[in-house]
Structures are given as structure tokens and as C-alpha cells.
């Protein structure tokens, strides 16, 4: 593999990311899937002196409904217009989304309005009639992983942790998985484009790790909306994830890093499901391959307590990764809530090594 070829593409696909004053919209599902991620993003943004504003009355962008043909496009456009109205009313111009599918939908809608101004006018009319609101379009649209990418140097400088095996001194091997809606629809909207995105690879490199490419890197994580949301299709979902695990296993990755709500969910949970179904695990000695969101990893780099990051709810234990990197953790506190009360300990899996 010629890394200079990738670097050439990475240089081609760069985009402007606002430096400060962000209007942040959350994901519908991430707080259930990986509850520490969005909280961690807000925490390190504040520590880095960045102003992030949230309005609790923002709603879903309707992306999942749109992509499953439940929500018509004009309805989706009007709901997105309402989010923009909340941003406008708060006096912000830089829109940041937590969710990849939202980012894709916002991008798609802004492009639609760009090419079909009458659709924008109709949307303005619908929003006005329905809510009385008006909106300005964002001056800058970014995904939260873009913002974290922009701040990767500051995070590295502020943190004391490096993605290096403390025993061998070698960089940890990390595979990255990018959400489909990040740049596949609009390559120019993603850092590094669609085929060799750099947004996560840039963080891994900056934080001391080694990015590992593997043949099924581009393959679906297993969510794929219809593969999972339609119950009869769920076999496809597990099969898609399994194909990726089989492909990455020979490269012995220490970590899977993601930037989408669905990808870490399925790459994490299906490792457990496959181990129960077939007795197969993909890490060393019966371990799985830990899966993290970029916020969780940034939190580790910054020295946050692993249990504050929400690793308790990961199906694949992250302890082997923490051990490799030399991050201390208190096993006794893993399943305690913030008030020190027990949250209950899950039953150990049959095959996947549990801590």
C-alpha cells in the first residue's frame, strides 16, 4: 500500500470547519447506545475553551424515518428547517451534528435547496405555517467528528495518553469505520472523501496509533437500516458485521474506532451475538476487538476515567485495550452509578471474555 497515494486524496478532500461557537444537535439513539459519548464531547469542548450551545427543544432530524421511507422528504426538510430556526433564534451560524445520518440528511437538504431553490421556499412556507418560525441556513455545517478532528492536536497536547502499547512501545493497531452517510453521498463534505476518509485516521495518527486498512474496510457495519430495522432481515445485519470481523481479524487490530451511531452499536453487540451463536471471538485469548466512538477515545487520551466514558455498557469489554495502553481503572467501580450505587452486573457471556 502506498500511503502517499492516500495522502494525495486526503489533501484533495479538506473542508472548512468552524473554529468556535457551535449549535449542537444530538442523535436520537446515541445516548442509549453509548451514553458517555455526547457528554464527553461537550466536556472536552468546554475544557478546550469552545462555546457549544444546545437547545433541549430540538427534535429528531427524522433521518431514520426518511431512510426507511416512513417520513416523506418534504416533512424531513421542514423538520430540519425547524432545527435551523432554533440555531438562528439562538444567534448561531455553525451547525454541528452528533449523528452521521443527521449530518448526511442536513447535507442532502442543503444541496437540494441549492439546486432547487423553490423547494427551500416551500419549506420556509411550511415551517412558517406550522410553527411561525423562520430560519437562516448554517454558514458552516460539520459533524462532531470533524470538529474533534480539527481539535486533534490540542487534544493530543492536553492529554497524557498515547495509542502505544506500554509493553512493546509499538503503536496500537486501529481500524476505523466511517458511517455511510458521512461522505458517501457527498465526498466533498467529508475529510478525506468517500473512499479513504481521513477524519478518524487523522485522529489515530495524531494520537500515536497505526491505522490498519483491511479488505472489507468499506463494507457495511451491519446496521444498514433495512438490514436491521426490518426484523426478517437481521440475518443480513449479523452477516455483514461478521464479514468485516473475519476480514480485519488477520491484522490483529487492538481497536475499532467509529463515528456513527449505528456502527459502534453493531460492531460491538454483534461480536457478542456471534460469539453466542458460533463460539467465535475475534480478539486474542477469547477477547473481542474493543469498539469505541471517537469521543470515548478522545476522552481516554485526555485522561478521563474510563467509567465516566460509559464503557460499562459496551458488550465487548475494553479492559484489554486499557491494559495495553496502561490506563488505570478500578474494576470495583465499573458497575456503580455516579452516586456510587450498584447498577447491577450483567451475566457473563458464554464465550466472550468478560471482566
Amino acid at each position, binding site marked *: 500500500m502506498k500511503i502517499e497515494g492516500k495522502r494525495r486524496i486526503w489533501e484533495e478532500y479538506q473542508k472548512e470547519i468552524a473554529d468556535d461557537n457551535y449549535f449542537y444537535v444530538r442523535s436520537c439513539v446515541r445516548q442509549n447506545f453509548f451514553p458517555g459519548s455526547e457528554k464527553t464531547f461537550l466536556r472536552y469542548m468546554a475544557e478546550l475553551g469552545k462555546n457549544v450551545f444546545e437547545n433541549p427543544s430540538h427534535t429528531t432530524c427524522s433521518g431514520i424515518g426518511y431512510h426507511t421511507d416512513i417520513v416523506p422528504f418534504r416533512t424531513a426538510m421542514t423538520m430540519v428547517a425547524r432545527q435551523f430556526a432554533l440555531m438562528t433564534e439562538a444567534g448561531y451560524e455553525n451547525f454541528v451534528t452528533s449523528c452521521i445520518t443527521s449530518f448526511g440528511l442536513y447535507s442532502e437538504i442543503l444541496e437540494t435547496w441549492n439546486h432547487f431553490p423553490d423547494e427551500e421556499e416551500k419549506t420556509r412556507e411550511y415551517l412558517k405555517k406550522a410553527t411561525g418560525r423562520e430560519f437562516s441556513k448554517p454558514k458552516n455545517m460539520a459533524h462532531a467528528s470533524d470538529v474533534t478532528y480539527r481539535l486533534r492536536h490540542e487534544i493530543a497536547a492536553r492529554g497524557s495518553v498515547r495509542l502505544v502499547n506500554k509493553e512493546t512501545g509499538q503503536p496500537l493497531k486501529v481500524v476505523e469505520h466511517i458511517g455511510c452517510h458521512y461522505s458517501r453521498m457527498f465526498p466533498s463534505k467529508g475529510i478525506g472523501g*468517500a473512499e479513504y476518509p481521513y477524519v478518524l485516521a487523522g485522529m489515530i495518527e495524531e494520537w500515536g496509533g497505526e491505522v490498519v*486498512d483491511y479488505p472489507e474496510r468499506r463494507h457495511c457495519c451491519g446496521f444498514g437500516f433495512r438490514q436491521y430495522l426490518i426484523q426478517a432481515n437481521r440475518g443480513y445485519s449479523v452477516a455483514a458485521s461478521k464479514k468485516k470481523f473475519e476480514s480485519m481479524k488477520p491484522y490483529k487490530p487492538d481497536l475499532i474506532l467509529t463515528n456513527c451511531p449505528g456502527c459502534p452499536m453493531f460492531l460491538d453487540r454483534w461480536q457478542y451475538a456471534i460469539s453466542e451463536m458460533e463460539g467465535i471471538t475475534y480478539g486474542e485469548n477469547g477477547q473481542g476487538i474493543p469498539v469505541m466512538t471517537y469521543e470515548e477515545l478522545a476522552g481516554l487520551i485526555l485522561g478521563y476515567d474510563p467509567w465516566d466514558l460509559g464503557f460499562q455498557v459496551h458488550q465487548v469489554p475494553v479492559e484489554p485495550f486499557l491494559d495495553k495502553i496502561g490506563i488505570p481503572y478500578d474494576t470495583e467501580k465499573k458497575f456503580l452509578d455516579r452516586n456510587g450505587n450498584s447498577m447491577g452486573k450483567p451475566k457473563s457471556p458464554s464465550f466472550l471474555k468478560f471482566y
Partner: protein
Amino acid sequence: MENSVIVIGGGIAGITAAATMSGNGLKVTLIERNNKLGGHVSEWSRLFPDRRKASEVIDYLEAGLGETKIISGCSVNGIINHDNSFTVLTDTAGSITAEALLIATGFDLFRAAIKEEYGYGIYNNVITSAEFEEMLDSRAGVLTANGRVPKRIGVIHCVGSRDEKVGNLYCSKVCCVTGVKQAIELKEMYPDSEVYCFYMDLRMFDRHFEELYYEAQQKWGVSFIRGRLSECAENADGSIVVKTEDTLTGKPLKMSVDLLILLVGIVPSPGTGRIAGMLGLKTGEDGFINSVDAHTMDNSSGIPGVFLAGALKGPASVNSVIADARAAAVQAMAWLSTNKTVNA
């Protein structure tokens, strides 16, 4: 200056036109950007369909240049149209004036890296058809990046041609038969290898092409799979994973090959665009130069005294470029010999 012509471009179109006009007594100046003549054909090993050495064709054409004044390693910086004559401003040979211009600035090969999903420039064992030709003539021969004999080779048709995604809707004409030729050459070299051609449809339009296609299948056992490549990836051992759909069986197909050859299409050369801009020549949406009438006046540019030859008007095979260049030369000669009265 009487009966003088400047030919811009020293590929096979320019050489042929210059040789034809020079042989008929015109004072011809041939300007070529590179240091040697022959254009892309000089970088090719053998030509379809008979596998003749490309160098033999160039040698034959060059031998006819006669009194032609050849200025190589020279770029055109500007052109002044004086109505009855043209002055070409160059970077190394000053200004040259003649009564007529014959433009033969040719084509370029599609830049394979634009098809990012194919991994050219990233995966070591993804090469272009042009690089394959270089390998044929090299001492080492055709080997993988780590110097091994490839056991399984994929040949990808229509790279940068008939592809809306890259903005090239047209067919590059010569890639299909080039793919068949290169597949046969691989089998000749490595009889035990497996060679797979991935195609949309095979356009064997010219004499002996269809026979070559049959020979590839019947004599050499080349496999033809109807399916457009969707993406490539690299295995740990450097082999290339290709994903496509076999559209005849209706099934997705994934396989690994040791070497992947991309049959890169034909695109207008930057030189063609520059000269078109200098003269105000009309180009189509595809970037190639439009002649006055593709049926009856295909060598006429619409500017009196400016004639067109070869692949600057669109993809063309060596045979048809040579024929076209001779036609352009004849038209230029007719124009000059009739005191510039024949339609240009």
C-alpha cells in the same frame, strides 16, 4: 512561405499528415512538445489486432517525413491568425509563419486515480494498460509489485469511459480490443495463469476484432465476466480484492487477483484544449474538438486554413487516425492549391 503548413503535434496523426504534405511538395514544419515523435503510440508495445510492434508503425511513418522541418521539445505559446497566414509563437523556436495550420494535438489517457475506488496509486498491484505495455517491453517483464509471476490477473474495461460519475459518457473505442490483446499476451507469457476480463459489453467494431475475441476465449481460455467493477481493496499479501456483479448470472462476485490492469480511456489532451482556446475552435461537451461536419467535413475546423487530424476529435484507433490524418493533409493541400477557395 508559399505552400507552407505548420503541423502542431507529433503523434501518429501529425507525422502522417506532415509526411503526406511533405511528400507532395509542401513546405512543412512539425512542432512537437516532447523530445521525440510518436505520441502515445511510442509508449505502446504492440498494436491490435495483429500484434504488430508499435515502433514499426512509427518508424514507417517517420521515414516518410522527408523534407519536413521537425521542431521537437517545443511548446506553442500563442497563435496569430492573419487571415491569409498564421504565426505560431513557440517557447524554443521563436515565431513561425505559414499559410495553413494542421492541428494534431491528440489525446491523453484517463487519469486512473480519479476512480478512487479502484485504488490506483494506492494499491501496489493496480496498474494501467499503458503501464502494462511498458512492462511488456521491459527486461523484467510483467510481474507483481513484489517481483512474482502473477497467477491470476484481472483486466478492467471502461475505466474512465462510459462513466457518468467521472463525466465521460462516451466510449473510448480502443480499450475493449486492447483488453483482449493484453489478455492474450498474458496467457502467452504465463499459460498457467487465469485471466479475467470484466466488461460492460464488448465493442469489437473493426475488422479482425471479433476474431481476436473468439481466439482469446477458445484458444487461450480467457474468462469474460459481464460486470462493472464496483471497488477494489488490498489483501495482506498485496493481492487485490475485486468486487463486481456478474450480470449474466445476476450474482455478486468477489475474487482476489495478483495483478489488476485498468484499461484507461481516452480524454482530450491539455494541449488540445490550449490550442482550441488560442484559435477559438469549438469543442463538444466531452472536450474534444468539433469539426464543421462529422460526416462530410470532418477535417475542417471552421476557420479557413486550419485543419484537424486524429484523436483530438475523439477516440480513434491507429488505423483510423492514419487515414484521417491523410484526409486532413489532402484537404489542406486542396485548399492551398486552389488559392484558398475550397471550403475549409
